[in-house]
Structures are given as structure tokens and as C-alpha cells.
């Protein structure tokens, strides 16, 4: 019997190389991935918090300030025209990235958080009344909870929450039951940052539209991993952040259908968002400028354009294939640790793995991994209702990007074992 067992060759799965996708080559584009932390090569597995930036993005910021800097949309001089063109080129790249119909539907903001707040304080205030209902889910990031709570409190509307099952998936029948005549908006996360769940957004949107209810998608964790097509989805609002998409911090995008934007009141008042101002009356600028008051983060927007170029060059298909392998490998390897419990086991997942360990608090595990150069996130990940749902105070989360490797997953697993030994 023993002989028989011995003869079974235990082999680690060998990754099949993806044509045109060389992860080692790609890693060279990210200077931070070459650094060491606490004496060990960095293993960066906190991509859901923020991604790292390729050299092209870093250079774009420096190049902008070295050779292109001027204020936009207001000068006739060379640099102002150049800066304006670069800024507007990114708007077109974003339009193409998510396949919006028109650049008039692309509004630059500071991030996902501001995009959602913009919708709540303009569309929300204009269209939602006392007694109305807004539907969110149990797995929302705080940034897709609090703005709606604030709105509900101030106007006397109600927040309804779609429950999730033990795998961390939306219970779709319960969602359909929540939809009624009082529902004025559905705001849900496309891909959960703490569970990795990819929600059935297409069906969620069809369900809402059957009641003439618009849908906002929090796409912060979707855009780094998969092609988004807002026209196919027919979603009404879509928000994401540049910094989770290999671009700089301080820039985000709100997509909204043009007819909705037309009817929405401005968000902030100031320069840029007007066509004429007298003390009696102000005429607002055309879309999307009506929603971009003041001097924006021009360098950031220009650099986001580079991030989009970079991702397009690698291609979502390659990214997807590589990340599916990473997720599968990491799930298998982590599941082999006996005292480990996965939090979030949805059938459709992005490469995000949350877990707890029987006798080690996530915060301790985070420190132990950090000392080995492994960056993970520990805590509630700004999704406290998810933690409550799974009855855990916090989790440890490893979240991957296309530049991560199986070797790094091995280091994570080794690192966890080191912690288990330390605590025994």
C-alpha cells in the first residue's frame, strides 16, 4: 500500500504559458516590484487596496510637469492647448475602455467615492423623495453605503439591503422581492473587494429596468480585471478609481448616461463648469464639463490615459487567463491549510481571497507576513456589514493583479505556515 502511495507522483501544477503574456517581462515594467521589504523581495498582494504603477504611468506624471503643464480649457497659448488635448485624449480612452456612447458621458472625479457622492447629491437629491427606497447589497464598500445613508436620513427615504448567502453571493430572488414602486435607485458593487464575488450585474440591471429603476455600479474592483461594456450592460451609472487600475491616485471616473447627466443639477459650482456668469444668472457648461468645477487633477488624468494604454497592450483576455490560474492555484494552496477558512467562495470570483485562521488573528498574521516582505491587507476592508454577515471581526485578504505569480502564492503559503509555527 505504501509503495503504491509512493509511486503517485505529486506534482505542482505547471503553468501553461500564455502566448504573448510574459509575466516576468511585465514585472520589469513595475519598479516597485523589484524592491525588498524587511530584507525580502516584495510580494505585493494588496492590489484591491491600490495597484502598483508601471514606469510608463510614473513617467507620464513627470513628463507632464516637465514639458506639458498648463491650465486647461482656458488658454490660447501652446501649452494650454497641449495640456487640454492630453486631458481630453484620456476622456476618449476611458470612453473606449468601458465602451460608453459618448465622451459627454465621462466625468472625471477624484475616485469611486466621489463619483458615488456626486450621484447621491445630484441625481439622488433631485429624484428621491420621502418614503422612496434605495437598494444596495450586503457586500457594499462603505463608500456605496454611507452616501445613500446620508441621503436617506436627510430626505426620509429608506435603504434596502439585498442579503447574501454563505458563499458571499447575492440572493437574487430576495433582490427581485425588494424591487417595487417605491424603489428609485439600485446601487450595487460589480465586484466585491472583500469577498471577490462578481455579481450578476446584467440580471440585476434587467431586473431594475423592468421597474424603470436606474442602476449604479461600483466598478472599482471590476475594471482592473475584466472588460466592461456599459452599453451592453445598459447600466445607468458606473464608477471606478484610477489608482486601482494601475494609474495614479486622486483620479476617478463617473460614467452616466447622457440623458441622466443632462437632467442632473451641477455637483459643485465654480470655474470650468459654467458658460457665463452674471450676478443674476449662471448658464452651465455643456456635458461633461458641467460636472467638473475647478482645475482638475490634470497630470493624474493624463497618466490614467497611459495606464489605459498599458492595460490595452497586455489585453484583458491575457489578464483574465493569467488571473484565473492565479485564483485557482491560490484557492487550492490556501485550502490545504487545515485551520484556514475562506471567506467568500462565490462561483464567479475576481482574484481576491479573504480568509481567517483558527488561532491567529488577522492583524497578527498581517504583521507576520509583512516581516517576510509579503503585503496583504487585514481588517474589515471598509465592508463591516460583510464581516458581520460572516461573523468575523476581520479577515486577511490577498488580492492579485496580472503581475503576480504562482511563486508569490507559494511564498504566501510558506509565510502563513511560518506564522502557524510561531503561534504553536
Amino acid at each position, binding site marked *: 500500500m505504501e509503495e503504491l502511495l509512493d509511486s503517485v507522483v505529486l506534482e505542482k501544477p505547471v503553468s501553461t504559458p500564455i502566448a504573448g503574456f510574459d509575466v516576468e517581462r511585465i514585472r520589469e515594467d513595475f519598479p516597485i516590484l523589484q524592491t525588498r521589504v524587511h530584507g525580502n523581495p516584495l510580494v505585493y498582494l494588496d492590489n484591491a487596496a491600490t495597484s502598483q504603477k508601471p514606469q510608463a504611468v510614473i513617467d507620464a506624471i513627470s513628463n507632464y510637469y516637465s514639458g506639458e503643464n498648463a491650465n486647461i480649457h482656458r488658454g490660447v497659448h501652446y501649452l494650454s492647448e497641449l495640456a487640454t488635448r492630453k486631458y481630453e485624449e484620456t476622456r476618449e480612452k476611458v470612453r473606449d475602455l468601458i465602451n460608453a456612447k459618448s465622451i459627454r458621458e465621462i466625468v472625471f472625479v477624484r475616485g469611486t467615492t466621489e463619483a458615488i457622492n456626486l450621484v447621491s447629491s445630484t441625481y439622488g437629491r433631485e429624484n428621491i423623495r420621502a418614503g422612496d427606497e434605495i437598494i444596495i447589497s450586503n457586500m457594499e464598500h462603505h463608500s456605496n453605503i454611507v452616501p445613500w445613508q446620508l441621503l436617506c436620513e436627510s430626505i426620509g427615504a429608506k435603504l434596502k439591503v439585498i442579503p447574501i448567502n454563505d458563499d458571499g453571493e447575492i440572493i437574487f430572488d430576495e433582490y427581485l422581492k425588494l424591487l417595487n414602486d417605491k424603489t428609485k435607485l439600485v446601487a450595487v458593487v460589480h465586484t466585491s473587494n472583500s469577498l471577490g464575488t462578481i455579481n450578476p450585474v446584467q440580471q440585476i440591471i434587467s431586473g431594475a429596468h423592468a421597474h424603470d429603476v436606474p442602476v449604479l455600479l461600483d466598478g472599482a474592483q471590476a475594471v482592473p480585471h475584466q472588460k466592461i461594456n456599459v452599453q451592453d450592460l445598459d447600466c445607468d451609472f458606473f464608477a471606478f478609481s484610477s489608482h486601482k487600475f494601475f494609474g495614479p491616485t486622486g483620479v476617478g471616473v463617473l460614467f452616466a448616461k447622457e440623458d441622466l447627466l443632462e437632467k442632473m443639477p451641477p455637483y459643485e459650482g465654480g470655474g470650468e463648469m459654467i458658460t457665463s456668469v452674471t450676478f443674476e444668472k449662471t448658464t452651465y457648461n455643456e456635458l461633461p464639463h458641467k460636472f467638473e468645477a475647478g482645475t482638475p487633477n490634470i497630470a493624474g488624468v493624463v497618466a490614467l490615459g497611459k495606464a489605459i494604454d498599458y492595460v490595452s497592450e497586455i489585453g484583458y483576455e491575457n489578464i483574465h487567463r493569467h488571473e484565473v490560474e492565479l485564483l485557482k492555484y491560490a484557492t487550492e494552496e490556501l485550502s490545504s491549510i487545515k485551520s484556514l477558512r475562506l471567506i467568500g467562495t462565490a462561483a464567479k470570483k475576481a482574484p481576491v481571497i479573504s480568509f481567517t485562521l483558527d*488561532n491567529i*488573528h*488577522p*492583524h*497578527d498574521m498581517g504583521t507576520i507576513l509583512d*516581516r517576510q516582505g509579503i503585503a496583504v491587507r487585514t481588517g474589515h476592508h471598509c465592508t463591516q456589514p460583510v464581516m458581520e454577515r460572516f461573523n468575523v471581526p*476581520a479577515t486577511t485578504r490577498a488580492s492579485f493583479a496580472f503581475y503576480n505569480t504562482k511563486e508569490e502564492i507559494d511564498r504566501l503559503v510558506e509565510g502563513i505556515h*511560518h506564522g502557524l509555527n*510561531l*503561534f504553536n
Partner: protein
Amino acid sequence: MEDLRELYQEVILDHNRNPKNFKKLENASHTSEGYNPLCGDRINLYLQIEDDRIKDISFVGSGCAISKASSSVMTGELKGKSLAEAKELFKKFQGIITGKTEADLTGLDKLSVFAGVREFPVRVKCAALAWHTMLEAIENGTEAISTE
């Protein structure tokens, strides 16, 4: 990796596994709840104070090894101490975990096991949570406090 062993000393791991005074005090005169939103550490502290002296002290809660061990050690150290002595000990403990004061540590062996925390700045809050909660309980009795 040596500093990990320095942080997670055997004594600390023991206290984490089998915390002392880990229960609710039914006849507490002062209580307080401490919360560290960064990592979700939560502690409920119970004190029975008579004539400005801590007659009994206990805690319940969930948290990382550092915060749990620190709560366990603190409750052991403070039993029988006067309020003034408790505050004085907190000051010395802060010196130990931040490494900022070279206070006289004679007789503070039990608290000194937390000296490794100073190499881990983000964990200082974990070690101090119980003590902040104690101070809050003494001064205000019931309101929840936070280290953020």
C-alpha cells in the same frame, strides 16, 4: 524574522491562548469599551473600585494576540493598585512599548515583555488599547472609546 520572536514572546502567546481575568465582573463599579477600528480589536473592561483602589478587574473581548495579552497582563498587574498607581503604570508601559522613555523598569518584568512592540509602530495601539480603556473607565465610567 528575529524581531517576530521578539514581538511574539512565549509569555505573550500564553496570555493570548489562556488570558487571565477573562470574564465579566458582575459587581463592576466602572466599565468601558475600547475599540480599535483599524483591526477590529474590541475589549470590554470591568473594574470594581473602592476607596480609589482597584479591588477587582476583568475583561472580555476579541482581538489580536498583542491586545489580548496586553489586557490579560494589565488586569493582573492592576489588581490591588490605587488609581494613582494605575495611571503611573500606564505611563511606564507607554515608555516600554514606544521605547521613548528610559524609565526605571525594575519590578516591571511582566510589562517589559511588550518591549518588542516598539519595532512595530502600527501595533503600539494594540498593546495600548487595554490601558486606554482602563483610563477611560476610571475617568468616565461607561462610554466606548476608540484608539483612532
